[in-house]
């Protein structure tokens, strides 16, 4: 029983992390129908950006004062993620805007491999996993049999808060309306004066900022980062987005928590343990897609007039 409760708590932390990344997949897909396979690497470079900021920018005297160093590290991680996403959009995807759908998809895979190799080769000592500082309150929250590190609690809080903020921004702001209009009918959005390039850039920036936050908080939680982390977590996040209904903000968040829970519970209770958690996640995905191809919150595929 206590193991189950503990695994549920771990699953929620995992879900919170996956949600921050899944939002980027789902937003970009909603606007330009591209599965940006390199989005996992945007998360990964955010972690390395955060680590670099901590190592070379945060002054020694405040390195242990988390409420000073964490904000600086977050800004550094987000800045690197956003910069990489902007370059990716401008130089890899924009030239392929009118190309057949397969071209940007393959390009995304190429960008993903490129970024992994780039960091592995040029970040000092990144050929092995690197320690990441615990730039938050140390220790654990203990509720009965459950123990969750404070940095895990932080991850949950930030993820929920940013998801709500994003949803509110998209539903209420002028640019959010322009984003939804472009997603629903790009040509008519142009007739309203909406500049599609601005909307697309904004979409990449928002997704990358969330991924950058996720990268830093992941490092803070696990105290360890490597160049494969984007690929691994990216697959979970992508699956969460599809499960929730790609293009749907709420779907991505709900999908992420489902994936997080399935992953930890399957790792604990299913044959094969954590080695095979992927298998169970894909089983859930396939089951959902068989009965609801558009995902939990997705709009059914419709033909445009």
């Amino acid at each position, binding site marked *: 029983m206590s193991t189950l409760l503990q695994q549920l708590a771990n699953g929620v932390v995992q879900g919170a992390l996956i949600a921050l990344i899944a939002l980027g997949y789902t937003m970009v897909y909603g606007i330009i129908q591209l599965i940006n396979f390199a989005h996992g690497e945007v998360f990964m470079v955010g972690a390395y950006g955060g680590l670099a900021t901590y190592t070379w920018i945060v002054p020694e005297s405040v390195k242990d004062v988390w409420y000073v160093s964490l904000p600086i590290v977050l800004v550094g991680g987000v800045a690197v993620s956003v910069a990489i996403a902007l370059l990716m959009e401008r130089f890899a995807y924009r030239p392929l805007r009118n190309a057949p759908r397969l071209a940007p998809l393959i390009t995304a895979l190429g960008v993903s491999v490129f970024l992994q190799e780039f960091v592995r080769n040029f970040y000092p000592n990144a050929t092995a996993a690197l320690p990441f500082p615990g730039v938050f309150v140390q220790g654990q929250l203990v509720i009965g049999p459950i123990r969750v590190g404070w940095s895990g609690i932080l991850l949950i809080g930030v993820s929920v808060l940013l998801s709500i903020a994003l949803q509110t921004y998209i539903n209420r702001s*002028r640019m959010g*309306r*322009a984003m*939804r*209009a472009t997603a*629903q*009918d790009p*040509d*008519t*959005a*142009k*007739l*309203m*004066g*909406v*500049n*599609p390039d601005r909307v697309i850039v904004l979409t990449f920036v928002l997704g990358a900022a969330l991924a950058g936050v996720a990268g830093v908080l992941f490092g803070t939680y696990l105290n360890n980062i490597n160049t494969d982390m984007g690929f691994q977590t990216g697959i979970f996040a992508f699956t969460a987005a599809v499960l929730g209904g790609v293009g749907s903000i709420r779907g991505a968040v709900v999908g992420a928590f489902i994936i997080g829970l399935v992953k930890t519970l399957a790792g604990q209770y299913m044959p094969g343990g954590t080695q095979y958690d992927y298998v169970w996640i894909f089983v859930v995905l396939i089951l959902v897609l068989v009965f609801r191809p558009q995902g939990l919150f997705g*709009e059914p595929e419709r033909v445009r*007039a």
Partner: protein
Amino acid sequence: MSALLEVRDLSVAYGAIEAVRDISFTVEAGHIVSLIGSNGAGKTTTLRTISGLLRPTGGEIVFDGKPIHDQPAHTILGSGLAHCPEGRRLFPRMTVEENLQLGAYVRKDDGVEADMQNVYELFPVLGERRHNKAGLFSGGEQQMLAIGRAMMSKPKLLMLDEPSMGLSPIMTQLIFDTIKELQKQGTTILLVEQNALAALALSDHGYVIDLGQTTLDGPGHELLADERVRAAYLGED
């Protein structure tokens, strides 16, 4: 009188298929001008090219004294040219209010709220259902919203592509009355219709388009009386 919109020798192609060949027409400020022609004549293609959604293969489009055929589509509305597209093309998963707000997307002034109230006064049914999703509306209500949305930018010229398509005769009449009213309020109108009779009756000037070319033009009432027009478009022999 000066021409607000001038289209000269416009040609547009979809790949190898030339949909519009050397079309020329003029819209004077304050007028209602209609382009009539059967299905596939090239009317929609012409409007989409004026709006910048398609690029011409030849010719020019001059609006308010400036050539606009090289401008990106999203900049056209800002210069005062609104396009109410064929099939309404509302944002179906947004509310009436959000659709109207998007119509005013390019505006920076603070009169947007008041203009929204004007739309609700003109079409009370929209006001009653302002928080409902546009996709759930009837054809007539959708057309009202499409026109209202296009008016929200306060355009100098409003292009309407088949506003009567799929509407009941009563609803069609309401839409045409609204168009006349917009003209009275100072908006210039470029109207595309298959419903030639109703369109020409309303128009200061009309152009007949056939197989991508302008074949006839003249004041609305003259075209209405023209035997060739009556034979081809009004179902008379």
